C-alpha cells in the first residue's frame, strides 16, 4: 500500500531476512497503535470487570505473532492481517481464562436444546417462564444467562451475515478491496435465507434482530422502540437468535 514507504519496507526486508531483533522491535512499536484500536472495540462489548490493560497485553501478543508470520512479498496489507490476529489473540485469551464461566456456556447449549423442544411442542416461541420451568431454573437466572450470552458475543448472527470477518479466517485475509463474485452471491444468498427465516419469527423477536443487524441501531435505541431496558434487549436478542437458528436448522 501507499504507506509502505521505503523505510518500512526496508525494515520488513531486514527482519524477514535476518530475524534482526532491533528491526522486530521497531515494527512492533510502529504498528502498536493498532492494538489500542482493536482492544477498545473488543472491550466495548465486554462486562466492566474486564481490565482494558489486560486486553492490550493480549493484543500485543497477537501483533507480535502477526509480525512473525506475515509474508510481505505476497503484497497484502499488513494492517488488515494484523487487526484480525490481534482480535483473535484477545478473544482466545479471554476464552482460555474462562471469563465467561463454563456454566454459562453449558447453559447456552441447554437453552438451545430446550428452545427447540418447546418450539416443536408448542408450535410457537416459548415465554421465558415456560422455558425456565422446562429447564427447572428460576426465570431471573435464565434471563441473566441470556443477557450474558449476547453481551459477550457467544450468541449472535455475525458469523452468518459476514462469514469472512470471523477470527478463524483471520489468517487468510488479504486486503479485501473487492470481494469475488462468488463471495457476493454467497452473501446475498445467506441474507435472503436469513430474511425469510426472520419473517417467520414472532413480531418482537423479528424486530430485535432486524433493528440490530439490518438497521444498525444501538441497544439503547432498540430499547426505546420496544419500550424495554437495554438488558432486556440483550435477553431478547439471545432468545431470538436461538429461535432463528433452530428454524434455520430444521
Amino acid at each position, binding site marked *: 500500500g501507499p504507506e509502505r514507504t521505503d523505510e518500512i519496507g526496508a525494515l520488513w526486508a531486514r527482519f524477514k531476512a535476518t530475524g534482526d531483533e532491533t528491526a522486530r522491535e*521497531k515494527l512492533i512499536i510502529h504498528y502498536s497503535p493498532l492494538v489500542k484500536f482493536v482492544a477498545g472495540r473488543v*472491550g*466495548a*462489548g465486554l462486562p466492566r470487570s474486564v481490565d482494558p490493560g489486560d486486553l492490550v497485553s493480549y493484543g500485543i501478543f497477537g501483533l507480535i505473532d502477526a509480525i512473525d508470520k506475515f509474508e510481505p512479498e505476497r503484497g497484502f*496489507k499488513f494492517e488488515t492481517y494484523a487487526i484480525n490476529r490481534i482480535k483473535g489473540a484477545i478473544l482466545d485469551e479471554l476464552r482460555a481464562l474462562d471469563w465467561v464461566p463454563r456454566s454459562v456456556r453449558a447453559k447456552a447449549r441447554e437453552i438451545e436444546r430446550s428452545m427447540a423442544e418447546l418450539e416443536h411442542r408448542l408450535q410457537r416461541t416459548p415465554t421465558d417462564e415456560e422455558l425456565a420451568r422446562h429447564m427447572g431454573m428460576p426465570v431471573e437466572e435464565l434471563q441473566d444467562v441470556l443477557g450474558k450470552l449476547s453481551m459477550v458475543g457467544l450468541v449472535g448472527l455475525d458469523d452468518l451475515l459476514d462469514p469472512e470477518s470471523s477470527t478463524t479466517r483471520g489468517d487468510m485475509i488479504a486486503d479485501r478491496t473487492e470481494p469475488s463474485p462468488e463471495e457476493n452471491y454467497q452473501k446475498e444468498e445467506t441474507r435472503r435465507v436469513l430474511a425469510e427465516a426472520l419473517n417467520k419469527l414472532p413480531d418482537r423477536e423479528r424486530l430485535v434482530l432486524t433493528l440490530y443487524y439490518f438497521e444498525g*441501531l444501538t441497544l439503547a435505541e432498540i430499547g426505546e422502540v420496544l419500550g424495554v431496558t437495554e438488558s432486556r434487549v440483550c435477553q431478547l436478542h439471545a432468545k431470538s437468535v436461538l429461535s432463528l437458528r433452530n428454524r434455520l436448522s430444521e
Partner: protein
Amino acid sequence: LEQLRARKALASEVENELSYYRRVLHGRIDLIRFEQRRRRGEETRRLIDALPEILSEQLGRGGSEMPRTFVTDLPPLPDTGRRDIDHILSDEVLLRLDEMSDERLQVSLDALLAMEREVSESRRRVQQVEDRLGEALAERYRSVGA
C-alpha cells in the same frame, strides 16, 4: 425509510473511519510522550516493556454500564493513502524515536496533536448526526406500532 437507512449507513462508515484514525493518532501521541518522559528521566523502563500501560490509557467505558452494541466484528479499515491524515501518519517517527532530536520529536508531536483535535472534533459531529438518524429510524419503527 430507505433514505434514512442510507444516510445512517454512510454516517456510520465515516464514524468508523474517524474512530480508527483517532485511535491510531492516540497511540502515536502517547508513545511519543513516553519517549519524552524517558528523556527527562521520569521513566526508567524501555518503551517496548511499557507498551500495555501506554496504550491502555482512556480505554475504559467511563460512566455507562451497558455497551452501545455487542462485541461485534471490526469494521473494515479505511483505504489509506489519500488524505492529509495519511500524510501525517506517513511520518515514520515511531521507527526513529530514540534517534530523533528533542526539537524534531516535538514537531512530530505538535502535528499529531493538531490532527487529533480535528479528527476528534469531526468524529463528535458525525456521531451526533449518526445518533440523530438512529433516533429517527427508531421513531419510524415505534410509530408503526412495534
